[in-house]
């Protein structure tokens, strides 16, 4: 099995349980996350419930993406042909490093040392900003939240709202410290903050000659790329510079232009709780004298074909990065995104990260366990990814990985012993008959406040409720036997 194929995760973040503990202690962050996730949840619910065909839309989204994944090779070649015909140069990148080298070479050719960026998960996944920075090229994020994260030297904690963990007072402080020309009396009024960011970014847009973007969708038959956004910064990046480099995961294909109508309804409602997002940009290659004249698309694998080979896990590739699963997740709501240690946080991150990277690293093996399997993610997913199913599937893979490496021996032995006991009438009955009376006495009237070892993880926050004197089956046996013993029919 190959090792990490790209940055995807931050090397200094420990496995989820430990990372989560650190994040849970940040009370202000927790309050912000709880407030904002509940707001987005309510907005989404309102615009979803007004559509009586919502379930049909979800099924359509699921089926289009499933079809694309089944015939991905054909659609990718069709997209390559259409893009090439429209004057776009198509590149294929097997992993993050490969993609970064392609991008660096393209930027170098232009002689520019500053590029503007449209918010994109694919470019975050490959760490292109860091790659270019080491080679003297500054990549400026132009999405407001992404800019905040970048200026603060922070990390994104959400797929759509990367600065969700910051409140507006913190944002004011970040601007004051890092943004040139900020007035001393800048307040934390959202309109003022947005105005300040607009003035700062406008200069960047006007002098940029190179833009780097991702794409939400690529239409295979027309070679059309599509980006949805809220702020208009994307539109600036896609139209003003002369060179446009778009990094696109190979799963972003939709077969025809008509298929876009399904996703352009599903995505904004699921993502920001809007009926329609403010800006939808579509472009089909180079138009002489209008917009970028030098266009490139870098199709990125970086572990995707590995995920595609897994019959259960591949459904994660249907993801359209809406973040509804993050916003609905009771775990994400409390730990925030940084605990997942990946550019893909939340439930989708817990199934995507280990599939893109493999399971050699303990961080990747811990992620599928970062869920109570409550199913809130699956319920809201616009392309019906059965996240709990993939989570339990990947837990099996994590356990198998440890089996090969002779780790987790105690746990495995315990589960084997449990199966042996549960699958044996005598042992099961004897266990209940012997264990319960003892446990009943040991727990006392008020139950237990403290247990040793693994049980201590439970009693850290909960009592152990007192077990009964006898099991249900013993009671049943006594009751059904009683009439016969009394000599009654």
């Amino acid at each position, binding site marked *: 099995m190959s090792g990490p194929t790209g940055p995807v995760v931050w090397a200094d973040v420990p496995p989820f349980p430990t990372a989560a503990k650190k994040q849970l202690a940040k009370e202000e962050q927790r309050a912000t996350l709880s407030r904002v996730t509940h707001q987005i949840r309510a907005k989404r619910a309102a615009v979803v419930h007004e559509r009586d065909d919502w379930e049909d839309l979800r099924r359509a989204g699921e089926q289009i993406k499933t079809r694309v994944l089944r015939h991905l090779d054909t659609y990718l070649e069709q997209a390559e042909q259409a893009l090439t015909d429209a004057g776009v140069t198509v590149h294929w990148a097997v992993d993050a490093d490969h993609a970064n080298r392609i991008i660096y070479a393209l930027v170098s050719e232009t002689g520019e040392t500053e590029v503007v960026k449209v918010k994109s998960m694919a470019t975050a996944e490959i760490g292109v900003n860091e790659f270019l920075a080491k080679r003297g090229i500054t990549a400026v994020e132009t999405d407001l939240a992404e800019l905040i994260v970048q200026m603060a030297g922070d990390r994104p904690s959400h797929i759509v709202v990367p600065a969700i963990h910051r409140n507006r007072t913190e944002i004011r402080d970040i601007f004051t410290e890092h943004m040139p020309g900020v007035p001393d009396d800048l307040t934390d009024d959202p309109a003022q903050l947005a105005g300040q960011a607009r003035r700062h970014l406008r200069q960047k847009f006007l002098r940029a000659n190179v833009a780097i973007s991702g794409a939400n969708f690529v239409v295979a038959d027309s070679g059309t790329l599509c980006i949805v956004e809220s702020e208009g910064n994307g539109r600036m990046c896609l139209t003003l510079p002369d060179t446009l480099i778009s990094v696109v995961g190979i799963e972003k294909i939709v077969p025809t232009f008509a298929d876009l109508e399904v996703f352009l309804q599903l995505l904004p409602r699921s993502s920001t709780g809007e009926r329609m997002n403010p800006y939808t940009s579509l472009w089909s290659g180079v138009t002489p004298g209008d917009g970028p004249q030098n266009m490139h698309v870098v199709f990125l694998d970086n572990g995707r074909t590995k995920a595609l080979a897994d019959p259960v896990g591949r459904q994660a590739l249907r993801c359209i990065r809406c973040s509804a699963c993050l916003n609905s997740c009771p775990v994400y709501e409390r730990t925030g995104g940084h605990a997942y240690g990946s550019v893909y946080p939340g439930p989708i991150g817990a199934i995507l990260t280990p599939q893109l990277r493999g399971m050699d690293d303990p961080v990747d093996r811990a992620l599928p366990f970062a869920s109570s399997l409550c199913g809130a993610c699956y319920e809201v997913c616009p392309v019906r990814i059965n996240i709990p199913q993939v989570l339990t599937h990947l*837990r099996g893979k994590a356990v198998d990985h440890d089996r090969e490496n002779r780790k987790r021996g105690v746990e495995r032995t315990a*589960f084997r012993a*449990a*199966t042996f006991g549960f699958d044996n*009438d005598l042992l099961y009955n004897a266990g209940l008959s012997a264990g319960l009376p003892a446990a009943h006495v040991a727990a006392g009237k008020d139950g237990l406040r403290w247990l040793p070892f693994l*049980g201590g993880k439970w009693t850290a926050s909960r009592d152990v409720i007192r077990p009964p004197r006898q*099991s*249900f089956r013993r009671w049943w046996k006594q009751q059904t036997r009683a009439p016969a013993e009394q000599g009654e029919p």
Partner: protein
Amino acid sequence: MRVALFITCVNDAMFPDTGKATVAVLRRLGQEVEFPTSQSCCGQPHFNSGYQDEAIPLVRRFVRAFDDYDVVVSPSASCVSMVHENYAYLAAKAGDRQLQSDLAALTPRVLELSQLLTDVLQVDDVGAYFPHTVTYHPACHGLRTLHLGDRYPRLLTAVEGLTLLDLQDAQECCGFGGMFSVKNADTSAAMVSSKVDNVLATGAQVLTSTDNSCLLNMAGALVRRSRATRFMHAAEILATTRAGGESWRETMPAVARADA
């Protein structure tokens, strides 16, 4: 109609009263209930912890125990979900075609208690009497896998004397999740803490749910804050009557004794 009780291992060992209550309610409605003693654990702890192969013998045992019955009823949405969501997958993984076809026939007959009461027996009012304020936590598997919807709210509001109080963020997970509660103990604790806040805010005398495992979690955290709120499985509320009170807890229901 031959009805088998699928008690589940957690209820068998920790909550026998929930089993007694289920039997009492069904007998009151004229259903004879049998208890196949070869049943044990459904394998969910194994499956959810990644030990899928270890769960397969328990799938076979389930089929052996319950195959002869018209209806298999359980006071656990979580264990019923395990059967519906994962058994077919495990049988396929085991490459056992006989098991697959047995399951295809059996699984639709495996019902959560409220499905049997409201869908099959077509009753909302089971004749219970429970003069207390109650708040209901719709446990995740019942809510999102079995889609129990308003079945329990309907059953509970039909109970004489019962006042059902709304629980804030009721649909949010209590943080149990089986091994999740110890493997990610800090996150689980943060989740159950919010749930307890919301339960206490209702001022209800009783917290109820479809699953004792979730109640074990919520009540374990609840008692550290207040011993004023009781917790009990919804079946135990439905079993309590004006005439008999909670007598079902210790004795066989009246119908059974009359038979004897």
